[in-house]
């Protein structure tokens, strides 16, 4: 081969830093990435700013009392308090997590560690499919199938056996915080399970082998080595699920009953922050009413931010313990 000829066909090297950077695409690519990430930060700040600005009337009228009072009277007294909605959102989300965490982590363990090969793919696909079902379909199913078939009998049982607790006080309604919480659990379950499975699959095999070679049983290996190893990733999966539960609007609105109930009974109908906004923004005729709804949006936004911040902190602390290994 004539190497000299080939060489002469290549472009001559050029000197000049700026020119080269752009020619190689590094500069333009970096510019694009910086703009995209700045846009993202700007978006979050803009949303927060708008919510803050547009709730000024309500914030000035009620101050911090907005968080602790439960009047919601747009018609006569024009007084607003967000407590029932905050309570409803927190109760349904926490119930959803309590039910969903063991189910979804268990499913993830099964999918990642125990399932035979022929079952792993189809089951994993189904879980991902569940995560992709639109929430209005969950709502419809919840209202017409889930409530009569499961929620009512379960609520009757809980009230009969544990009715002495304020949490399970009667009377029993179909649409309730209980119905919303369990439906939310079903909705966040595939999200947590799918992400947790990927977290477990990403753990190097050497960790499994190390435990088993020490004479650990499979359960000891999973519970003492894999779960702590994947801890930060699993926490991330749970936070992802919690985020979905906090913000879920339509399905919750369809099964929670939309009632300003002030008891803390799970079996009573309730209201969440997301569903009151969705239900009432069209009929918010006075400025104060509309701004009160926007302030609820601001609170929901703030709660989501705070929870994500705490989660980051926890993940960061966990990741520091498993230094250099788990970057999930």
């Amino acid at each position: 081969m004539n190497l000299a000829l080939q060489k002469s066909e290549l472009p001559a090297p050029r000197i000049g830093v700026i020119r080269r950077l752009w020619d190689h695409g590094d500069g333009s690519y970096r510019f694009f990435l910086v703009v995209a990430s700045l846009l993202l930060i700007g978006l979050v700040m803009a949303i927060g700013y708008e919510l803050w600005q547009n709730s000024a009337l309500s914030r000035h009228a009620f101050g911090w009392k907005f968080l602790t009072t439960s009047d919601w009277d747009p018609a006569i007294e024009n007084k607003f308090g967000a407590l029932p909605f905050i309570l409803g959102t927190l109760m349904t989300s926490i119930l959803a997590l309590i039910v969903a965490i063991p189910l979804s982590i268990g499913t993830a363990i099964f999918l990642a560690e125990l399932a035979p090969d022929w079952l792993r793919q189809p089951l994993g696909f189904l879980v991902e499919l569940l995560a992709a079902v639109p929430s209005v379909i969950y709502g419809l199913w919840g209202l017409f199938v889930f409530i009569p078939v499961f929620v009512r009998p379960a609520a009757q049982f809980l009230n009969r056996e544990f009715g002495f607790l304020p949490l399970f006080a009667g009377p029993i309604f179909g649409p309730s915080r209980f119905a919303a919480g369990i439906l939310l659990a079903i909705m966040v379950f595939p999200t947590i399970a799918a992400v947790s499975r990927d977290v477990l699959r990403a753990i190097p095999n050497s960790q499994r082998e190390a435990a088993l070679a020490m004479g650990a049983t499979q359960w000891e290996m999973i519970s003492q080595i894999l779960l702590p190893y994947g801890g930060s990733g699993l926490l991330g999966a749970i936070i992802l699920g919690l985020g979905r539960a906090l913000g879920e609007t339509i399905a919750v609105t369809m099964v929670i009953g939309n009632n300003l109930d002030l008891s803390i009974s799970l079996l009573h109908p309730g209201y969440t922050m997301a569903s009151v906004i969705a239900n009432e923004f069209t009929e918010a005729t006075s400025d104060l009413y509309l701004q009160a709804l926007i302030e609820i949006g601001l609170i929901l936004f703030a709660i989501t931010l705070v929870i994500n911040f705490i989660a980051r902190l926890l993940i960061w602390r966990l990741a520091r313990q498993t230094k250099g290994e788990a970057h999930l």
Partner: protein
Amino acid sequence: MLMTSQVSFLINKKHEKNDEKTLKMKIENLSVYYRNFRAIEMVNLPIYAQSITAIIGPSGCGKSTLLRALNRMNDLVPGARTEGQVFLDGMPIYVPNVDVVEIRRRIGMVFQRPNPFPKSIYDNVAYGPRLLGIHSRAKLDEIVERSLLAAALWDEVNDKLDQSGLSLSGGQQQRLCIARAIAIQPEVILMDEPASALDPIATLKIEELMGALKKAYTIVIVTHNMQQAARVSDYTAMMMLSDQAERSGTVIEFGETEQIFLNPKDKRTEDYVTGRFG
């Protein structure tokens, strides 16, 4: 050239080996398949107690597969199948009702890459004893100290037992893994190229450690490094692909390490240990 350096090792090597050969393990007509692929074929090999047996041979000839067959780690590979038998103190381990967990407690393993758990140094070593139900702090303290001493790591870590095992250097991590393995006092320790990821100084420490450990344990080591096999082992098994078409590995020669390196009977062994292979 290679030959002379190996010979000098052998001549200087102390003969600490027990003259009465006690059979610790016995491998009989062992074949391992991964689905349809036969990785090793009809291996017969004795493992003598309180000695170091090295398994050498070119890449891909099934050395690790053979080693992992000894504590049934191949069970974890989907599609792996084993024929033949392995005996531990005369008891067969490839029988349906054997307790695999118990087998692995008696036959420990150290892997090619150090794989400490992302836990403290203390918890890494205490992991095995805790599995066995030992939870008394005093007892665990004693086991951790004894194991780290035996692994020649105690002096370097005794003031930072609560730090992560991952904060140690590669060579220290590997000795931590050895300490972790010997904390439950296995009878046999399997080592799969334990020094291949380490620098020469760390390698030397691991080799010295093996020499010390064989007084109490039976050690089987897979190594690519022939000088290492010549330096540390009492017995050597030479593996090679038996059949070029099928690419199954088998043991072509076994004997005392001096004999394998100085006076190999098989021409292929001679070519390999003198560096004329391939």
